[in-house]
């Protein structure tokens, strides 16, 4: 069975959807690696504030990313 994946920006992800991180812009790359997030990670979106941050979760750790940078992170979702 072949699954369909679509590539979107992180700010377009819907709450409770899973996704895989594809690219992270240079400005926040190191900060996110430290917090535990890097390209290739399989994560889940726990909340999204309209015009505001996207909150994603890895293990038990929740991390909020402001709208501006969320719109620069590429992710793929099923």
């Amino acid at each position, binding site marked *: 069975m072949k699954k369909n994946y679509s590539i979107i920006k992180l700010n377009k992800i819907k709450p409770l959807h899973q996704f895989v991180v594809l690219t992270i812009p240079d400005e*926040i790359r*190191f900060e996110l690696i430290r917090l*535990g997030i890097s390209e290739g990670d399989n994560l889940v979106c726990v909340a999204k*504030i309209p015009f*505001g941050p996207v909150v994603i979760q*890895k293990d038990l750790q*929740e991390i*909020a990313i402001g709208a501006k940078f969320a719109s620069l992170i590429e992710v793929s979702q099923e």
Partner: protein
Amino acid sequence: MQGNLKKEIKVALVGNPNVGKSVIFNHLTGIYADVSNYPGTTIEIANAPIQFNQDDKFQQDSQKYIFNLIDTPGVYGISSFNDEEIATRDYILDVDIIINVVSAISLSRDLFLTKQLTDIGKPLIMVLNLIDEAKFRKVEINIDELSRAIGIKIIPAIAVTGFGMASLKQEIINAPELKDQSNIHPGRISPEINALIEPFLDFTLSRGEALLIAEADKNIAEKYNFRLSDNALELREKIYKIRRKEVDALCRECVSKSGFSKRVFLGKILLNPLWGSICSALILYLFLYKFLGNFVAGTVVDFFETNFFNNIYEPFVRNIVSNFFPIYYENLSNLIFTDPKAALGTFLAGDYGVLTLTVTYLYGLLLPLVLGFYLGLAILEDSGYLPRLAVLADGLLTRLGMNGRAIIPLILGGGCVTMAVVTTRLLNNKKEKLIAMSLLGLAIPCSAQLGVIQGLLTNIEGIRPWLIWGLTLIMIFGFVGIALNKLVPGDCGHFISDIPPMRFPRLKNLLKKTFVRTKVFMDEATGAFFIAAGVVAFFQVAGLLDKIIIFFEPLITKVLLLPKEVGLSFILGMIRRDFGAFGLLKIPLTPSQIVTSCLVLTLFVPCIATLAVMIKERNLKSAISIWLASWILAFGFGAIFARFVGYFLV
């Protein structure tokens, strides 16, 4: 003499923000460093010797050595990304032993720093804190396996209860057993990373510095006159990715989890745009209107101020003073020249007497209000609510030229604007700091002033006056923020924040925090209150008070449509905002006048102490600009408001 000299061993507490470093510092040294459930709290770096109990083993060693403990600011890694990191990095390079505090519920995040510390190669002990939280969340950690894999001793702990602290002390005191060589292991150095830092080991003094240069740390490279090459960042990324891979592997091997808890559910509700906003509005209402306004400023203050200070204390003092000097309550002008003895009596125990009014204000009003505010704030902090509020507010604050993190200084400003101005340091850039500082100076009332305002507003029938005051303030806040965002050049910074878990606040921590902060506040306020009251009492008997009131009369009566006596509150507010607000309580006002004066007083200039901190944190020009702008905006908005508020109150 020589025999009394102790050898100093420097120990640093290092860890991610909000993992319990300050609580551990408190346990080890007996000294209280401000503890909260949000990042950026450790701004002043605490430093004190570790206290060993008489019954500790190795008592002899504690006689020979002095272990100086440093509580470093929380960081996610060490480099020169921001001021906190630079401070922490320099301490790490300098100390003899590192205690790495790690949260058991966020190992995949925290171990990144741990692995960086083992690569630095200094004696290292890990405190695995919050193991009770981990258990509650059904996270299982194989501590023996983790300890073996990293190559360091791990001490499980629940810092708030003190669990694990005795073992930690024991471990620290074991350190210098082998003469000058510590017997605490530095942990396993990653072989892959070790190969990458090899070229830098030749010209640096320590492995730590070699690692930091390999990770493209500009400051350390400059120290050795080393020019970072164009692909320096690629090497950093390579090292970071190796480390991240190692950490993820460690977590897979040593951590397992199952199930969810109610608290996780609550944490998620607060991040929901709709429910989170409803909860925030409800919390604001309960905290400001019900708790601070109705209960503290109403019931509690009434009880202390009226029943004790006005009815018992003040008559008692007046009775004593009047045995020696006459006290006058009216026709005070020129009293100092006509009857110096009565002037002194009035100065001491008259309407504005330093022994009567000042003491009543300080302990009957200020103390309960400040206690109430800090208790409420402590609950909000310790529960983990504030970082969630920061997430909710980020979208709005971005439009005002800041980011979500700015919510913390803005809320702290409700305690003491002066202190909050210092915490604007945790913002990203100059633009954000300037805007936050301006809004703090303009639109945020500080605790006692806030309390008096809440008391006055809740005293009028219904919730409408409170809502009018609150909504107008939010509108002005937004208007000024948007304008500043347009006017101040630069970009607003980015917002990336990890969200600490919701916790049930511990009573002991709440009370301790409340008392320590209240004490700091009261210590500062006491002197300022006596000076302010002394000046007013002196002006009164010297006949100057009436002249000042008359001078400001047109501005107060014509522009703001308020009785001329309110002018005195504004003048006093320039010295201390709370002292000014207290003055309002003495003046009979109509509901419209109450709401107007509450609004103008909120918007009016920051106090002298805040002004001084603004000059220190930025410069004289910004501080004076904010001060002058407050005058214009307070009276400008006040004049418009005074003419329309009546329509909304009916």
